[in-house]
């Protein structure tokens, strides 16, 4: 292993443990544990939200994707970019106004039923575990490439650190690790971006021209259709566009600010930060095609994950390589810690405190439950990750997003905007969205392949790898049908009043 990389890696571990130490002093009750006391500023929370989208797989994956497949590398990035607008326009402010600690809090603000909360928490847990597995398996491979640790060692290091952050520092530590990582990653990307541009005399046309010539794909490199094609490309894009607005670990970030205005500021800051980051990442990818070369990139890792570190090495020598590798490691830690927290809050707040204890657990019991849940979520996901490490699970991240769009987004939007929506509709929408997506993926080419490139050998019954174009409408239709088919006349007045309350609070805030 490279000495500079190892020193920087240690430095990051020590710095994050310091953050956790100070955060731990401030994490004494449930509110501080789940939401950092609601005291983050718009800038801080905005950086943390954008940090959630700069996962190792998106940073290394986008740069590598553009370097190897040109235009098709943009797909993942454009969907994530525009998804911020969906969050901004439809979800951020009402969510902040209605919720407390979890997504289920927001939905049960309208339907105060244990089963609604139970299914909402189940969705959060399922999505969090799938998302976590995608991150962990990717992390194991990446850390091996970057720092030379074995897969199992890497996973245990990541597992211990993410548990420690959440366990002791709750949302405060999780947010600050994310904020600092976002700052480091943007700074590192910016330096590389300027270095790349300087190699091309700051002429964008030259970069495109030379990338096209350098790529073995020639003209096809700059044209769409290399990696994604047909209905699957459109389905993937729909899932990306709508997924962010239903991702639990992103949505709980809106509870860390004091009101809807700051929530709005956060998502505005996040949109600017992530868009500038993406623009830079595109040019890093194009630059790497010329400066590093497709052959070298594929030799290091066929999926192109080593593109950004290799580009750093070419442009800034060993130190830059070590820096980008260490920051990629920090990125993994920051993102998984957020997912642990969202899973733990669904477990401890929704299942334990609200359902089991009827909302009557003391602050001390709540924090203890949250800590036990954090350990459980971490241990369970690490164990599953060790079992699935040899399977090709690259689709799990996209699956988590599609699940979020199919199982969470319909119920979120109906709860806020549809007067006639009822408990049955909420439950059917969540169940059909969740299981519909999982079943479609289980029948898809991700799992079945006639030549044995997937988990099982055989022909896939469902033709698309990304089920979004079917599963998202399913979630919405199920919510609609569940509502209209179960409608009774008798209690419509009470229901109308309950919705009036949601309408007032989502628009004016809880104090109205």
């Amino acid at each position, binding site marked *: 292993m490279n000495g500079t990389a190892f020193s920087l890696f240690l430095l990051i571990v020590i710095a994050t443990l310091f953050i956790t130490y100070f955060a731990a002093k401030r994490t004494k009750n449930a509110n501080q544990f789940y939401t950092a006391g609601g005291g983050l500023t718009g800038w801080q929370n905005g950086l943390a939200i954008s940090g959630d989208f700069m996962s190792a797989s998106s940073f290394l994956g986008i740069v590598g994707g553009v370097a190897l497949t040109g235009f098709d590398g943009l797909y993942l990035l454009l969907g994530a970019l525009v998804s911020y607008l969906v969050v901004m*326009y439809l979800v951020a402010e009402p969510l902040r106004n209605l919720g407390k600690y979890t997504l289920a809090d927001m939905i049960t603000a309208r339907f105060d039923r244990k089963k609604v909360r139970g299914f909402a928490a189940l969705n959060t847990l399922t999505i969090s575990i799938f998302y976590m597995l995608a991150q962990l398996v990717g992390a194991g491979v990446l850390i091996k490439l970057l720092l030379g640790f074995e897969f199992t060692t890497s996973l245990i290091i990541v597992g211990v650190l993410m548990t420690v952050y959440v366990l002791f520092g709750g949302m405060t530590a999780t947010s600050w690790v994310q904020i600092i990582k976002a700052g480091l990653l943007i700074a590192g990307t910016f330096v590389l971006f300027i270095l790349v541009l300087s190699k091309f005399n700051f002429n964008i046309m030259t970069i495109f021209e030379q990338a096209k010539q350098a790529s073995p794909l020639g003209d096809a490199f700059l044209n*769409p259709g290399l990696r994604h094609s047909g209905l699957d*490309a459109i389905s993937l894009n729909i899932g990306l566009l709508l997924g962010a607005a239903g991702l639990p670990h992103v949505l709980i970030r809106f509870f860390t600010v004091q009101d809807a205005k700051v929530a709005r500021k956060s998502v*505005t800051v996040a949109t600017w930060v992530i868009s500038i980051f993406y623009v830079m990442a595109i040019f890093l990818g194009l630059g790497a095609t010329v400066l590093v070369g497709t052959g070298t990139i594929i030799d290091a890792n066929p999926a192109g994950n080593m593109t950004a570190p290799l580009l750093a090495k070419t442009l800034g020598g060993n130190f830059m390589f070590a820096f980008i590798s260490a920051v990629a490691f920090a990125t993994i830690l920051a993102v998984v810690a957020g997912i642990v927290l969202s899973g733990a809050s669904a477990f401890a707040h929704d299942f334990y405190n609200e359902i089991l204890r009827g909302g009557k657990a003391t602050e001390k019991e709540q924090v203890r439950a949250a800590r036990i849940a954090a350990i459980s979520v971490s241990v369970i996901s690490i164990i599953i990750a060790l079992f699935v490490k040899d399977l090709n699970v690259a689709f799990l991240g996209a699956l988590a997003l599609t699940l979020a769009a199919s199982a969470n987004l319909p119920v979120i939007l109906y709860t806020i905007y549809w007067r006639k929506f009822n408990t049955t509709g909420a439950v059917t929408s969540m169940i059909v969205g969740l299981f519909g997506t999982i079943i479609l993926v289980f029948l898809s080419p991700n799992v079945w392949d006639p030549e044995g490139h997937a988990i099982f050998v055989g022909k896939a019954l469902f033709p698309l790898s990304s089920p979004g174009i079917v599963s998202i409408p399913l979630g919405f239709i199920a919510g609609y049908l569940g509502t209209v088919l179960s409608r009774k006349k008798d209690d419509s007045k009470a229901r109308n009043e309950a919705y009036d309350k949601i309408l007032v609070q989502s628009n004016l805030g809880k104090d*109205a």
Partner: protein
Amino acid sequence: MDDNKKYSQIVQTVEFQQLLKAKKRFIVPAIIFIAAFFIFLPIMTTYSTVLNKPLIGPITWAWFLAFLQFIMTWTMAGLYSNKAAKFDHLSDQIKTKRPGKHDGAKEVNDL
């Protein structure tokens, strides 16, 4: 007074209805535009090759439209901040003039 009745009365005020209508008039067309603008690119790149035509030098229409997604995002984010500040103003008015008595709900704001 019954807590939930209080909310129903706020909902029935002219000001609150105006706020809802103003939000709807802005958000619904905006989100349809955003979704349509976004999905136009993958639909075009999937089912046609017309965007492969060069626009300026090596840059094709597809790349131009991809960068236009960034411009669109920045514009729509700015537009939202702007509009939201106006909605805040309307919300603040409703909160300060909140109806306390049972006939207060029917108060009409003569504009």
